[in-house]
């Protein structure tokens, strides 16, 4: 069954060998005992050490482990190390990641949970998974929910520095705008606040600071506005026809 599967798979996925590389190495050299005894959904690849792999793929499962052993021992130290290191990088492992969630007890500092460390750990896990996507498994389901981290931890870490930055910008702009308007018109700060035009300028300055945080944001906002009505225009298109055929 594995032979026909390997054949079918390589026939249907005619890709460069490098992209099927993780199929050959991962299942064969994995740490979990369960995987070694199951048949693999893989195609033989042409990577170094792949020739040994190719032989083992075609044989029945008990021989896979024997072939593993012989390949690992017989191969040169360089390639052996490479395959060993591939095996270690197989899945996300962290002593504090237990049963598909972060064990909060492990993050305690001075008797209280160190939420920043939890956030750091989750960031590292997500980065890892983005680079090495893993199979989702029913036996080790991931049940971590970011909402267990309390709102004030998020505020303190992400919102406050950004708010400080934006308030600083707004303060600088406000100070210089007030000075500028005063020097041009002689209207002091208190009187400016009563004037409608100045209030408009103030509103524009505040919304500008809030919406445009990076140079790219101007383009992004323009694209977003176009995006909101694009789908509607696609639906209306057939009705434009109705008008033209007058």
């Amino acid at each position: 069954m594995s032979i026909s599967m390997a054949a079918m798979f390589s026939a249907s996925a005619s890709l460069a060998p490098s992209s099927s590389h993780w199929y050959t190495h991962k299942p064969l050299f994995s740490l979990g005992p369960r995987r070694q005894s199951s048949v693999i959904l893989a195609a033989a690849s042409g990577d170094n050490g792949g020739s040994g792999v190719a032989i083992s793929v075609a044989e029945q499962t008990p021989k896979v482990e024997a072939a593993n052993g012989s390949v690992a021992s017989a191969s040169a130290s360089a390639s052996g190390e490479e395959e060993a290191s591939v095996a270690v990088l197989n899945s996300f492992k962290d002593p504090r990641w237990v049963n598909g969630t972060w064990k909060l007890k492990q993050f305690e500092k001075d008797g209280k949970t160190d939420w920043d460390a939890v956030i750091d750990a989750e960031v590292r896990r997500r980065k890892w998974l983005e680079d090495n996507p893993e199979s989702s498994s029913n036996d080790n389901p991931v049940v971590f929910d970011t909402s267990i981290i309390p709102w004030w931890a998020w505020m303190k870490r992400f919102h406050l520095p950004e708010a400080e930055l934006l308030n600083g910008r707004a303060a600088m702009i406000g100070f210089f705008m007030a000075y500028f308007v005063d020097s041009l018109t002689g209207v002091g700060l208190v009187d400016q606040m009563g004037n409608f035009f100045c209030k408009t300028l103030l509103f524009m300055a505040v919304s500008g600071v809030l919406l445009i945080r990076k140079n790219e944001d101007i383009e992004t906002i323009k694209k977003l506005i176009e995006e909101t009505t694009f789908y509607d225009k696609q639906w209306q298109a057939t009705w434009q026809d109705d008008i033209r055929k007058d």
Partner: protein
Amino acid sequence: MSSESALSAHLLSSLFLSVLETMASVVLKTFAGLRRSSDNSHQFPVQKPAKVHFRKARIVASRTCPKLSNRNLRVAVIGGGPAGGSAAETLAKGGVETILIERKLDNCKPCGGAIPLCMVGEFNLPLDIIDRKVTKMKMISPSNVAVDIGRTLKPYEYIGMVRREILDAYLRDRAAENGAKVINGLFMKMDMPKVQNAPYVLHYTEYTGTKGGVGEKKTVEVDAVIGADGANSKVAKSINAGDYEYAIAFQERIKIPDEKMAYYENLAEMYVGDDVSPDFYGWVFPKCDHVAVGTGTVTHKGDIKKFQLATLNRAKDKILGGQIIRVEAHPIPEHPRPRRLSGRVALVGDAAGYVTKCSGEGIYFAAKSGRMCAEAIVEGSENGKRMVDESDLRKYLKKWDKTYWPTYKVLDVLQKVFYRSNPAKEAFVEMCADEYVQKMTFDSYLYKTVTPGNPLDDLKLAFNTIGSLVRANALRREMEKLSS
């Protein structure tokens, strides 16, 4: 109308919903201008509003509706899928002389095969064409957070999984029973009428009997045409309907060992993540005795094989030991064609581009649009006694847009918000864990209407959504710091 305000109490925030409500009401108001006059020779003045709003109002200029003297109206339905089958059945029941041209009567169209509960009732489908009743779904985020949805389903509610060849054949046979003539042939082109009320001449190749035979060229004259021939519609090309953006859906059918198949007994899975698809999702759908594992994309069609490998990898534990028995792919339209109607030719189903965003659902909308178009023809021709013209067919478009545009818009918004990036997909899966979301999602999917939700719950949902999105994006920014 109650359906709009009900639909407006749909998934996301009450802000979204109120914006949608105003948009919908603006859209609908301008339709008041479309009228049909029953007087033959009157020429009504055309009114055009000064500013271009969402739609321009127009009063129909004239209507000639000669009574057909010695025959019934003849209509050809090109394409025998769900859209064609239900259109042909409704036409035949309405007394119209119908022919249905289908190129491959045993076609196994590559398809997810999911039909909502309401389709079974509305189209009187027998329960034995449903292979499996899916009552649970698992959404899996980029970081493999898995959420089960379906807790809120009542015992009689399910998503039906069908084999397309069975469903299509059933609908076609029913159309034939009602008097439609089913022809096994390939539509080639059509000649437009030179004079008003002249017939359309359709050129097609009929396949008779011998397998592998070349088939004989034939023509037939009809008064109206319904184009139900799918995403690569030839009818659409004939009327210069224009192009649409489309997604490529790639799917492999895998036969997995029985103990693994038991897990998928009534469960379907959806995998989201940039590795699986940058703008769509990967899926594992159970079929009759195997699973279909696939993915799709609009923007990165060249990488579809890579995405498929990633989907197989994510589902690896659960499909280990499986054997690939079939590989298939098909385009899925992303939005309606610029022109869905021209003269007395109307497009329905995938040919018109009626596939929803976000979920890519098309079977129900195909069947429903086929039926609606046929109903408009039957009504406009007074059960086949009068000739129809474009304004009668436009009524189908008007009714369709009015009934389903809010659904399409909400799904479009959902796709734009939640399929945008990995953090958005994480937030999406987090939101799916919420019971209120599950209830609203399933209610709207299964019945294609929405019972008004509690505004307080809507507000809470809005907060939770924004919270999830903010958290996921904050984590992503930290991730970027790590990599730089």
